[in-house]
């Protein structure tokens, strides 16, 4: 039982199993890999845990984005509208929607729970609050997010380049066939 003093000063006689497993999950994410356990605990405090049932929409393409999600358990499908084409399937420990942590642009795809799942929401206002309170930690996280966004942008560029080459070769093949 929590004593009144423990309630007032917020200390815990033993860590809750749930918090420890969340911190372990966060420690395994490449996004937070160089954070200490104290810093991970600070991140854990600002996460929002949400449970979704199979087929439930997490966010829709075109909606204003507030932040990213980390899959704790289950699977999430990222689809492009209107054709509902599945782009990726994300599993335990994967994260998505990280661009919205840096800007408030509309979501570029729809996220839907493919199975019953638990996710952690990590949102811009909470990140801003963390930067205010612990700027070192905040900057560390922002830098890691920026690196990931950059990495994914590079991958998208490479993919666009490959597709462009494929398109060119297809055009030439069509032109050759017409001649």
């Amino acid at each position, binding site marked *: 039982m929590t004593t009144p003093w423990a309630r*007032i000063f917020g200390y815990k006689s033993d860590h809750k199993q749930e918090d420890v497993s969340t911190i372990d999950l966060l420690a395994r994410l490449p996004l937070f890999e160089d954070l200490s356990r104290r810093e991970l605990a600070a991140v854990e405090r600002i996460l*929002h845990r949400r449970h979704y*049932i199979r087929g*439930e929409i997490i966010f829709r393409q075109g*909606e204003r984005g507030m932040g990213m999600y980390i899959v704790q358990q289950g699977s999430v499908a990222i689809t492009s509208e209107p054709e509902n084409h599945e782009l990726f399937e994300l599993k335990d420990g994967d994260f998505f929607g990280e661009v919205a942590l840096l800007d408030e642009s509309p979501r570029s795809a729809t996220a839907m729970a493919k199975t019953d799942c638990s996710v952690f929401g990590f949102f811009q206002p909470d990140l801003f609050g963390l930067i205010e309170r612990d700027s070192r930690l905040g900057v560390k996280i922002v830098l890691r997010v920026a690196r990931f966004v950059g990495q994914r942008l590079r991958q998208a560029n490479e993919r666009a380049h490959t597709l462009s080459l494929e398109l060119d070769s297809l055009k030439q093949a069509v032109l050759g066939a017409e001649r």
Partner: protein
Amino acid sequence: MLAGQTRNIIHISALFVAVFLVMVILYVGHVAEIVIVAGLLAYILDPVVTAIEERGLSRTAATALIMSLITLVVVVFWYTVIPIAIVQFKALQAGAGVTPASQALARIEGQLRDICQSLGLGPVNLAEELGKFKTSVVLKIPNFIINDSPALLIGLVMTPFVMFFILKDARQFKKYFISLVPNRYFEFTLDLMYKMDVQLGNYLRGQFIDALVFGLLATGALWTLDVPYFVFIGIFSGLANLIPFVGPLAGAGAALVAVVLEQGDLIRGFYVLLAFVILKLVDDIAIQPLAVGKHVDLHPMVIALAILVGGHIFGILGMLLVIPFVGFLKVVFEESIDTYRRYRFD
């Protein structure tokens, strides 16, 4: 899907229960006063606690530090200003300064009598009427202290207590509230709460700074003009300035009453009036635009009606708090519509 609907119904029911509880608390007026005052003070002080937290202290330690500093200020105030208040109160009871006041009243009464006679009205006895009024006020103060002191004491003890927990645990309260919101409206609610927090925080802190600066300037001006009870009237003017239209008049009126009735000095009364006009101009031109910035614009009629309703429900405190509250409702309404447009709800 059925399970999801059931969960949403549970969440919505929980929200309704929470709203019902808030209404019950609001119905119990005094508790609501304590919670509202503690909440507003916590809101104003939140950036200070966050700034201390940034220096490496935990939230609890930062909150405890701020509360200790406030206690220190209250203790200093208690030992420096309260003795002056007692002296001034005794002077008021003993009827000090009656002679100059009587002279001034006699002058005003003479002029009024001439006007009344020319208009064919009855005799005027201002001194007697004001004497009665003053006696009734002096008698009401001990009655107020005896009858209302238990509630006052509870308020004085409970407000810092509630404020401590709001300051320390506001983030957890917010997180818990957000956890009750159904998935589909969760990001929308988070977005809305963040925007409201920024808008309302800036507005309330701006109003607080405005009241503080106006109160200090008024105290300085009244001290320069040698107005009795200048500390109280200065503080009162600062607080009253939060009430549009009526507030500045109330501050100036209190100072005028003190000068004319206590010292009988009509010339200085004019200077006091002039000082308040200048202060109000400085407030409108410089302090408010700097401190409050972008105003939560409200229609003058809405302000007037809100003041009447606030005063009717919670008295002077209601008049003080009703404008920030109506401003809060306006921000909620506008931001809700703006944010709703950015989300795709089926």
